[in-house]
């Protein structure tokens, strides 16, 4: 074999703490290396051209690049060697940046380590063989999990692009958090007027099928061919015939059912349509409060329903759909502010969350758009807003900024003045973070035009005084303690990952970070991809995001899904398992262990049982290779011999005068 080695300086990123020239000299002496050189930026166009020229000039049939992580540029260099006429698998990378130059300062040790890593790559490459990808067809259908604004945007873009879409929503209606908002910043647009038409589009689009009150139960398969099981939860109403007339909700006698849509500010009926613009506009029974389901008596809704769609016997139903790509848009939940003792831990009814306040402001809310405080229904005159409740606070394990609370607090201060002209708003803040287009101007307007008083400091305690609450905090700019009498306190509760996120991540093989937000494939360059091919992220499930960013990500995820499924066929990674039929004894252990069902039993001409890998299904994990007692099934590109060659490169058998070869 004729191997070429290319050591990258990466500007000073590598060369700063690794003596690249020495590594070149050492590498030139490695087995079968006929050419070794270094370059400033190997991934740049001249760098890649250098590789191609060297392949031609020195007649190379294998290339090692020592540079950054293969997770970053392996595809780039594979394409480069392919352009030079080599098979893309006759290439290996040594990671001397993330694993060497960036983590150690001792140049001698780093240089030594870099040379070792290059030797490992050379030894592995000597045992590589050309691999050719197989093609497989895809299902031109996308699953969107979550019907918030990000998911809605992704679904509409995919459907407009010609793909069939299946949308799964956990709640009774799509719309997510945005549907609960009254107005949106910085334009004071009516939220439901902006979102409503898009929700209607979802319901009416011929390419979109919507499963509300449903959850993803399990996912199997792989990019292009996922099989998804959806649990349709029992609603006790036949949605194929329900017209959403609302007669049942008027007559239902069980009027003390909790109302999650209104953030539990009021109560609703046991059979209920959450809000007037709900999509799908169908009734559903809350089994915990329905008298018929609890005690077997009542049945009024069944009597009044003009189409006879009430079905008290309804059960959960499992539906299986085949899709080619998955967009995850599960959004966020609000931080549980009861963890803070200083805000009363729920003892004071007039301490509410920002989302509850949003429902009080909304014309479709429990108070019909009149701000009435929960304790006595009075109109508040002094409203105190407290920011960063569960944001930027390590003591409650929420060190991150929730991003948009500064903005919605300014919006709510403005709306308070609009609703109650003789009111006064106070905002306790840490910093004002308003980096969007027109955002800083908006917070200024809240202060200057609407007279909201901004107090820079934290709140130490809230205590009752008469029918008011006294908010005591620091004013760090004035250097004093302040006490503000408040009729209503609104907490700008921070954002946290959606409650089911971790479990869904396990189902989809998408990794959540320590806070439960899904990790993207690359923080800069692959913001909506995940490490599982064909699964994309949109919206706040990846991290706190405001509406425009969520919509942007929804479109981005749709573009990715459309791009993926626009190809007639996808190429599978040929680094898959391969059976040596001569060694296979037909024990079928590999068939039992394969998580993807990618191995099947076949009978050969002699009637003997043998394992056979279905190449397009195999994902290349190599579990079977370790399981096989015969060493008969080998994962291509990561064979036993290749990994052992790397081990031997690091720990030469001669170290102990014992030869294991």
């Amino acid at each position, binding site marked *: 074999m004729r191997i070429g080695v290319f050591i990258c300086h990466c500007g000073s990123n590598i060369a700063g703490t690794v003596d690249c020239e020495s590594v070149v000299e050492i590498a030139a002496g490695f087995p079968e290396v006929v050419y070794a050189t270094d370059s400033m930026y190997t991934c740049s166009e001249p760098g890649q051209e250098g590789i191609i020229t060297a392949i031609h000039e020195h007649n190379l049939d294998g290339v090692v690049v020592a540079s950054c*992580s293969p997770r970053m540029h392996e595809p780039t260099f594979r394409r480069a060697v392919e352009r030079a006429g080599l098979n893309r698998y006759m290439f290996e990378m040594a990671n001397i940046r993330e694993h060497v130059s960036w983590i150690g300062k001792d140049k001698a040790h780093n240089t030594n380590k870099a040379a070792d890593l290059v030797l490992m790559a050379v030894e592995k490459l000597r045992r590589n063989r050309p691999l050719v990808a197989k093609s497989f067809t895809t299902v031109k259908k996308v699953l969107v999990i979550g019907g918030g604004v990000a998911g809605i945007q992704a679904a509409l873009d995919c459907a407009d692009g010609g793909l069939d879409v299946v949308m799964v929503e956990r709640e009774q209606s799509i719309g997510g958090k945005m549907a609960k908002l009254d107005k949106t910043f910085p334009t004071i647009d009516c939220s439901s007027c902006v979102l409503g038409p898009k929700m209607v589009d979802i319901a009416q689009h011929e390419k979109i099928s919507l499963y509300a009150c449903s959850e993803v139960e399990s996912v199997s398969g792989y990019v292009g061919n996922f099989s998804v099981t959806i649990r349709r939860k029992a609603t006790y109403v036949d949605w194929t015939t329900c017209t959403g007339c609302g007669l049942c909700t008027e007559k239902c006698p069980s009027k003390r059912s909790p109302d999650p849509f209104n953030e539990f500010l009021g109560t609703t009926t046991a059979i209920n349509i959450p809000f007037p613009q709900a999509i799908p506009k169908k009734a559903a029974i809350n089994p915990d409060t329905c008298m018929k389901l609890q005690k077997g008596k009542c049945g009024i809704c069944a009597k009044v329903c003009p189409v006879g769609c009430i079905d008290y016997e309804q059960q959960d139903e499992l539906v299986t759909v085949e899709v080619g790509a998955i967009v995850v848009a599960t959004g966020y939940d609000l931080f549980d502010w009861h963890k803070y003792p200083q805000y009363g831990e729920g003892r004071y009814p007039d301490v509410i969350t920002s989302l509850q306040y949003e429902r009080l402001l909304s014309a479709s809310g429990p108070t019909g758009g009149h701000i009435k405080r929960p304790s006595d229904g009075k109109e508040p005159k002094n409203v105190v807003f407290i920011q960063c409740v569960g944001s930027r606070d390590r003591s409650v394990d929420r060190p991150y900024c929730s991003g948009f609370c500064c903005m919605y607090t300014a919006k709510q201060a403005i709306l308070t003045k609009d609703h109650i002209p003789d009111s006064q708003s106070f905002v306790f803040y840490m910093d004002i973070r308003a980096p969007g287009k027109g955002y800083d101007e908006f917070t200024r307007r809240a202060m200057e035009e609407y007279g909201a008083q901004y107090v820079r400091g934290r709140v130490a305690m809230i205590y009752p005084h008469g029918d008011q609450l006294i908010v005591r905090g620091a004013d760090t700019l004035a250097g004093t303690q302040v006490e503000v009498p408040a009729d209503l306190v609104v907490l700008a509760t921070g954002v946290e990952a959606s409650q089911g996120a971790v479990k869904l991540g396990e189902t989809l093989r998408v990794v959540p970070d320590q806070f439960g937000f899904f990790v993207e494939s690359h923080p800069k360059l692959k913001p909506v991809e995940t490490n599982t091919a064909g699964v994309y992220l949109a919206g706040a499930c990846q991290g706190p995001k405001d509406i425009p960013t969520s919509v942007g990500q929804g479109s981005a995820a749709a573009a990715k899904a459309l791009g993926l499924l626009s190809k007639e066929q996808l190429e599978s990674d040929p680094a898959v398992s391969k059976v040596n039929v001569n060694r296979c004894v037909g024990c079928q252990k590999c068939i039992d262990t394969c998580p993807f069902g990618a191995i099947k039993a076949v009978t050969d001409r002699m009637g003997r049982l043998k394992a056979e890998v279905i190449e397009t299904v195999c994902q290349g994990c190599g579990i079977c290779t370790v399981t096989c007692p015969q060493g008969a099934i080998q994962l291509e590109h990561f064979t036993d011999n290749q990994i052992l060659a790397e081990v031997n490169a690091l720990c030469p058998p001669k170290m102990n005068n014992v030869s294991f070869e």
Partner: protein
Amino acid sequence: MSAQDEQRELRIVGFLCNWCSYGGADTAGVARFIQPTDLRIIRVPCSGRIDPLFIVRALLNGADGVLVSGCHPRDCHYAEGNFYARRRLEMLKRFLPITGIDERRFEYTWVSASEGQRWQHVVTEFTRRIHELGPAPFFNPVSEEEWAKLALDGAARGASCACHG
């Protein structure tokens, strides 16, 4: 640990799964979390690809330590590879003392792609442990005659023989 020992590198081999721990090591690098330089990482697709014999081979070849890291249980990119790995590696850990290899020279752990800081901690701690143990003892191969003599000595000592006690 003296300054001189700290200077001298020992040979530590790492087997890391591509999706979580290798990414975690990358994350640590991107964040410039300084680590000891002794470790050399072998990238494998999944911790379920790691044959315990790879680890034994490394140790027999004279590695001073072997560190294995994969995705956290239930977060495996291949759904269940790390469950297989956990069983195999735990078995190996219990088996190593029987072969005469100090089991503290081998460790397995779980680090996700976002846990750069955790990776720094794992590497630093494991390297410290290996330095405390010092270089791996030299395996002295013996000739056929020596083996025969050892066997006879053992037989003569009966139950008091170290390998039967």
